[in-house]
């Protein structure tokens, strides 16, 4: 796998972003810059706003107020970004059909899709399952297929929403290995997780959210060695942030 040039949509800048749903504030005054480099990992309790921040960074959720820019542009075609949802929907096709669909949506000519889909399935450890109906795959296999589908877009930035939630250790390791390989190729990975161990293993920097507010945004080693805020100390200590 070769290194790719820095992603076209980076840096992604959040400037005082507020997102609400009815009376509920989901993100509250978020100011954050997502730069090229190792994975950025979002952590925080349920309802902290991790998924919404990820979707906003992908461009799927517009800010209620404030500004999001991709490489300085306020609106950007998500051509160079891809997202894997926590519970990815499997299209009613074979595993290979799912990947070929994503390749077609990304504009790849029909003649090249079969070969590329086979390579992507092999990359995520699903070689040989090309013709298996996607909905018949195990949970771990579906997550890997969703990852292959996201990678089919050849993204410069890859967003992963709890990519290993409810997976066993072997399936978790398989996903983490892919994330490392993708990141090593120069793809910017931004992911959220509840698993502090995973954050330690993968993160270049950690963003801690709580009740829609950004609590910390620091390099991972610093975050775990000397957290700056009380919330971060309590979160790392395993206390429940409510």
């Amino acid at each position, binding site marked *: 796998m070769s290194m790719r040039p820095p992603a076209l949509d980076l840096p992604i800048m959040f400037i005082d972003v507020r997102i609400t749903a009815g009376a509920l504030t989901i993100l509250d005054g978020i100011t954050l810059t997502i730069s090229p480099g190792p994975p950025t990992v979002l952590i925080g309790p349920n309802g902290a706003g991790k998924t919404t921040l990820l979707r906003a960074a992908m461009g799927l959720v517009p800010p209620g107020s404030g500004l999001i820019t991709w490489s300085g542009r306020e609106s950007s075609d998500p051509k160079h970004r891809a997202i894997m949802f926590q519970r990815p929907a499997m299209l*009613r*096709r*074979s595993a290979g059909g799912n990947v070929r669909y994503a390749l077609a*949506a990304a504009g790849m000519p029909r003649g090249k899709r079969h070969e590329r889909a086979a390579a992507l399935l092999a990359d995520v450890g699903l070689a040989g399952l090309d013709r298996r*109906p996607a*909905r018949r795959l195990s949970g771990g296999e579906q997550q890997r297929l969703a990852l292959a589908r996201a990678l089919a877009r050849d993204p410069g930035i890859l967003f992963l929403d709890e990519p290993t939630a409810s997976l066993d250790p072997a399936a978790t390791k398989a996903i983490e290995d892919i994330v490392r390989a993708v990141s090593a190729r120069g793809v910017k990975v931004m992911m959220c997780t509840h698993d502090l161990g995973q954050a330690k293993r993968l993160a270049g920097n950690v963003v801690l959210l709580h009740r829609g507010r950004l609590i910390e945004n620091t390099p991972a080693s610093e975050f775990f060695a000397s957290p700056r805020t009380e919330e971060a100390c309590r979160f790392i200590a395993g206390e429940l942030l409510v």
Partner: protein
Amino acid sequence: MSGNDSALQLVLSGDPALFAIVRLSLLVSLSAVVLAALIGVPAGALLALTRFRGREAVIVILNALMGLPPVVVGLAVFLLLSRSGPLGEWGLLFTPQAMVIAQTVLVAPIIAALTRQTIEDLWVEYQAELTAMNVGPLRRVRTLIWDARFSLVTALLAGFGRAAAEVGAIIIVGGNIDGFTRTMTTAIALETSKGDLPLAVGLGIVLIVIVIIINALAWGIRRTGERYAG
């Protein structure tokens, strides 16, 4: 019992009159289902994927149209196609084509309403993924119709059931002309009123068997498709 025996004999002997009626019935009903599908599936998909003022009212009306009284549809198509009607010069009244038109009007709302529901449910599931993949509106519609194809078979079956069982509309616009526009249902009604119960029962048996066979075929297609496509 003797009436039932005679009916069975008629079916087993391959009575040409009976099979001409069966052939026409299938031709009319299947043509109507195909036409209604060509109208109803895209219309239902469009309604599922678009948001506009008055959409809820359109859905309520479409659902209500599933229960359109066949005689009212027959009367409307009759007025449309009668010599003094707006389409009178086409000369279609009392022809199989008129019967196809009437059944299409009856079946299209059923297929459209069931398609709308099916596509809308699938869209809820697919929306985030397709939006993230930056899939355009036309490809979305194509994807949803294709991926819902096995569920849409049920909508087509419901439409076929309505068409095959229908008598009120086609008797008005077709006229129940022997050897030309007589179908199984209109023949059953006529033969029963004439007291020729063996033919009526024979036709009834054939009608039920055909409906079961078509449903079994559709079920088989659906199961096989789901096995391979998921």
